[in-house]
């Protein structure tokens, strides 16, 4: 029986889908991530690369770059350049600051030749999902409608294989992806100083608000700057996801999103 796909639940089979997690009567922040450091969780920064020499970032476990060959075919190769513009480093530093023991992996999809970036983005995301990363931080989006369907499929396949995609919402009046998909966790900014303040938004498509104003970010040349934008709110949620996953690795993306909701500042986060 167990080889059959679980598209139905035959009589007496409830045992087979027993949950590994002991769900508490009340989900608190203490239960969700109390004492967690992100240890053992693999977080992918799908961005412009990560500068491992920045003190806020620390060790980068693996780094690849997606580029195109002469025929325009995308491929993945080891990234020897680090960060080409600083954006990925800023995101990685935020994740590290909240989840100090996560494994940071970099997949570079921004930078050189980004005008044809949508295709590279798709390729990089597919690669990240194939690697089975626990959390993929996407502080970026594409406005290319042609890519929407493929992105949607990728987001769903990530969701079903327990890779959590955390994506920046667009605070501009344009259609963009993948943050609008319900299989990803979409993030906008709030103006509070607390990096763990998280708000659930009952008016989607943006589902959560995290710290996105006056964020201390790792910058090029080892500097630290104060920056604002949804790009920086997103890694806060990626880090919280990593904390929860390190303490409760058995949680599915759906359950993880439920935990984010239940521990949001405006839901039960003060308990």
């Amino acid at each position, binding site marked *: 029986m167990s080889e059959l796909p679980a598209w139905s639940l035959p009589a007496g089979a409830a045992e087979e889908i027993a949950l590994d997690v002991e769900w508490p009567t009340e989900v608190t922040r203490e239960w969700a991530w109390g004492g967690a450091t992100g240890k053992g969780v693999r977080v992918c920064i799908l961005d*412009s690369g990560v500068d491992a020499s920045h003190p806020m970032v620390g060790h980068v476990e693996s780094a690849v770059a997606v580029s195109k060959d002469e025929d325009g075919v995308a491929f993945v190769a080891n990234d020897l350049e680090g960060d*080409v*513009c*600083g*954006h990925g480093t800023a995101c990685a530093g935020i994740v590290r600051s909240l989840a100090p023991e996560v494994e940071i992996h970099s997949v570079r999809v*921004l*930078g*050189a*030749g*980004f*005008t044809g*970036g949508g295709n590279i983005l798709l390729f990089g995301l597919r690669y990240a999902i194939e690697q089975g990363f626990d959390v993929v931080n996407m*502080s*970026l*989006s*594409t*406005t*290319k*409608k042609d890519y929407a369907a493929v992105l949607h499929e990728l987001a769903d396949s990530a969701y079903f294989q327990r890779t959590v995609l955390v994506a*920046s919402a*667009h*605070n*501009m*009046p*344009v259609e*963009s992806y993948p943050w609008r998909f319900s299989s990803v966790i979409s993030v906008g*900014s*709030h*103006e509070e100083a607390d990096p763990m303040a998280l708000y659930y938004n009952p008016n989607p498509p943006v589902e959560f608000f995290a710290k*996105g*104003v*006056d964020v201390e970010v790792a*910058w*090029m*040349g080892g*500097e*630290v*700057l*104060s*920056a*604002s*934008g*949804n*790009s920086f709110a997103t890694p806060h949620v990626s880090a919280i996801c990593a904390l929860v996953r390190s303490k409760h690795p058995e949680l599915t993306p759906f359950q993880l999103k439920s935990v984010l909701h239940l521990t949001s500042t405006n839901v039960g986060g003060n308990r």
Partner: protein
Amino acid sequence: MTDDLNAAVAAAALGSEERFRALLRSVVEVARAIFAAKASSILLLDEQTNELVFEAVVGEGEESLLGQRFPAGTGVAGWVLATRTPLVIEDVARDPRFAKDVAEGTGYVPQGLMAVPLLHDEQALGVLEVLDRQSRFTLEEMELLGLFASQAAIALDLLQRAREAEAALAGDGELAPVARLAAALGELDEEARPDAQALLASLETVLRHK
């Protein structure tokens, strides 16, 4: 009819660039005023060279920056373009790379910078920047800047189209013969015009049947 044609050709080939440029300038002037900023600028992405070009600048650096180019893959404007999301930085001067590049160009190094991508249809056309605001940044300001960006993106799109039309109509451009034909038609006297129009109508019929 020929006057209309002439006007259309002239509008596409001549004065439109100046008008759209004036529109861009007015966008950055209003942006600068609303945010009580020291300067504001619009940068256009040149896809051929993958560079960003200052198309409109008001305030500090106005004279020296206009028309200047730099690689689109680097810098704050490059981030904004690549990630297609707005960004605010409060102490830009601490970025050694940024300070050096800008100081070499203008002698003016801003402290704070607000940048938003100019998105039109599916394209990222460029970046709108507001430098050194008086007020502390709020998310409301970001949304306001986003609205400005929509306006600026439309203006930038028109400017690009005008340039493409101009290139096609001028010199040895693809449509240059059409422009010359329209101009010649406009110069014909009343007597000769009907014959020329009949000839053009026949040509049109032949081309359409093809």
